[in-house]
């Protein structure tokens, strides 16, 4: 039966996958154009109509009710294409699965089908200026009014896709008298509700793939709670678990100036590939890249054999960032001054500079290197936790972020 499925997927993709020039940037890469967005929605709708969206999700809510085996087959076949599904990554990889896990029947019936068809895109509203690695210290407040509705005020940051999302999964503080992990609640928020303001957030590369989202007395109905009131931390952990899986699965597919292959070519073009010192640097970079690739392949084989990577995925994340930093160093050595000034219109110059400028994200976004080392130490090696000074204190009495409260 799975053989038939593979052929179906392969045939469908061969017919419907867009050519690479229809490329849609991933949510975390840069903001898509209206046109790219429309093309992505069309593709996702076609995927849904072909019975290839939400493979493992319940059939009752628009999914296909299949197993991880079919999902794996789809991914293997899709690996040959550059599908324009980046803008749905958060919807499909994080918000949707969390709704499947924790949503009410009404929520799932209302939200999952249009999510799967690409009609409604979701974003994730956790991080705040004062709450990055320490998400649970967030300050956005949701206060219940007499009618049982919630009124939300606060600011979120680093929100991918907020500019085109119809809905968001919002984490807000509903009980400031509880300790910090206890007084949070997760909500479905309509991104077009009055009081929601989305502003692009420019990052150090100069582009604005992220947003800041401001909530000014935004009204949310009582039935928009995901999971239980004041049990938002558990819901967030559920969602972040789905995030880790999606991050680990991503691959560098398109031209990347920071790979060994690219930098070796730069060295050849500049005529410095024979320099023994640069040759050694390139070989070391290759070794670093290769050992990470082999680690990922081994994690995959272990996973296929039934040993899920879990927190060990942090090793790949950490090593990935380290390889990139090493590549930045080697890029300077092989490209020389060309890495710092180039002619307008020289797209390889633009690409190299963008890659150098984007590298810090690798060791910050999705959990800093420091956070990854903590995860490995705590969860993989079982080392004792640091003493926590914020566990037993009502949130109201805690200092957080850098802001006056």
């Amino acid at each position: 039966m799975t053989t038939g499925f593979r052929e179906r997927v392969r045939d469908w993709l061969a017919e419907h996958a867009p050519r690479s020039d229809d490329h849609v940037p991933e949510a975390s890469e840069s903001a898509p154009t209206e046109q790219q967005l429309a093309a992505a929605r069309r593709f996702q709708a076609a995927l849904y109509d072909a019975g290839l969206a939400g493979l493992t999700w319940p059939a009752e809510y628009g999914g296909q009710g299949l197993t991880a085996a079919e999902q794996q087959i789809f991914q293997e076949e899709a690996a040959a294409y550059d599908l324009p599904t980046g803008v749905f990554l958060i919807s499909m990889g994080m918000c949707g699965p969390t709704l499947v896990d924790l949503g009410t029947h009404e929520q799932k019936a209302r939200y999952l089908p249009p999510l799967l068809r690409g009609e409604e895109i979701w974003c994730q509203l956790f991080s705040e200026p004062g709450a990055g690695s320490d998400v649970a210290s967030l300050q956005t407040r949701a206060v219940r009014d007499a009618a049982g509705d919630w009124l939300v005020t606060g600011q979120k940051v680093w929100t991918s896709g907020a500019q085109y999302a119809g809905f968001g999964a919002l984490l807000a503080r509903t009980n400031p008298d509880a300790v910090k992990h206890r007084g949070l609640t997760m909500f479905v928020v309509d991104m077009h509700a009055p009081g929601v303001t989305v502003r692009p957030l420019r990052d150090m590369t100069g582009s604005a793939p992220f947003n800041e989202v401001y909530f000014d007395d935004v009204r949310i109905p009582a039935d928009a709670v995901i999971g239980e009131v004041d049990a938002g931390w558990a819901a967030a952990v559920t969602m972040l678990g789905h995030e880790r899986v999606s991050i680990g699965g991503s691959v560098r597919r398109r031209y990347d100036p920071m790979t060994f292959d690219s930098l070796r070519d730069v060295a050849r073009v500049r005529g410095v590939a024979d320099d023994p010192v640069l040759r050694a640097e390139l070989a070391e970079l290759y070794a670093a890249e290769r050992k990470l690739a082999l680690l990922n392949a081994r994690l995959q084989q272990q996973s296929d054999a039934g040993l899920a990577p879990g927190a060990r995925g942090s090793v790949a994340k950490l090593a990935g960032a380290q390889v990139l930093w090493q590549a930045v160093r080697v890029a300077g050595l092989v490209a020389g001054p060309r890495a710092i000034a180039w002619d307008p219109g020289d797209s390889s110059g633009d690409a190299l500079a963008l890659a150098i400028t984007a590298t810090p994200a690798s060791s910050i976004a999705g959990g800093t290197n420091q956070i990854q080392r903590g995860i490995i130490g705590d969860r993989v090696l079982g080392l004792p936790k640091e003493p926590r000074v914020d566990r037993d204190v009502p949130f109201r009495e805690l200092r957080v972020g850098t802001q006056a409260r």
Partner: protein
Amino acid sequence: MRLILDEEQTGLGDSVRALLADHCPPQRVREVMADDGEGIDRRLWTQLATLGMTGLLVPEASGGAGAGHVERCVVLAELGAALAPVPYLSSAVLATDTVAALGDDSLAEELLPGIAAGQQTAAVAVAGTGGRWGSAADSVQAARDGGHWRLAGEAAFVVDGPSADHVLVYADHGWFLADGGAVSWRPSRTLDPTRRMARAEFAGTSARRVPCGDPAGVLEAVWHRAAVALAAEQLGGMRRVLADTVEYAKARVQFGRPIGSQQAVKHACADLYASCEQAEAVLWHAAWTADHDPAALPEAAALAQVVLGPAAFDTAAAGLQLHGGIGYTWEHDAHLYYKRAKTSELLLGTPADHRARLADALCL
């Protein structure tokens, strides 16, 4: 060998720092950076000139201060800390030192008073399109045309080129002086938005040949002094990043306590401090050597770039990392120091090139 500043030198740094705090805050740097023009704060430049900063190494006879490299490095460290958008490295360092090394009195008389007064700026064109220091000699051809010379070809990576009144060119037949306005400039795109560079295109550009027995020797002398000066800028950037990062680590609370109380952050800050302290010692040694022990300068200057180049970049990168997400935003200044540090690390050659220079100086 003196590795600490005297009172006068400390005072000099204080006054430049105060000037920059008033007139070159980050907001001002960003205004100049966003401007499509020449990328220079002319008003600030004039203020520096008024204080006598633009002609520190110009002899008093030519209207300069006749001071030493240590003093100039004190100023450069402050300019580097503020990312001040002024043509100091190009005009008050590279061009001034080239004129000094050429030793041609009439050239000095013609250029130095204007440079020292900050009324005119000059740039040097020494790299060809491949970027190697000195490779302009392969890519710019000089030909005699009656009583004067004409230049043809291209030079690249010319810092502050388009805004310069004069351009000193290292061409196949030695050193030439061209009028800035007579050169055809193609502004480059740059990693560092606070430092402009351009490609110079010469198409029969009229130029004056500067008599010089050893053009390559002059080029070397300029490199050594530029390496020391750039290291001072790099040190200034390191100090500023360290101070900002420590301040942030004290203020930012995470998991109920300041992040600076976490060993991961505290120990990283300690490493930055250790790197910065060693960089200080190397820089002041190089500056002192430039003033007092010219024979030892090739080693000291190469050492300065071997140490300061990567140290300044690593510091900028670590400072950004320790700021977390906020450091990755355009709004925060961390990225400006990051881009400047990578640019400076490669401006006079790569760290591997500098290491090879050091090895040469050590007779390895």
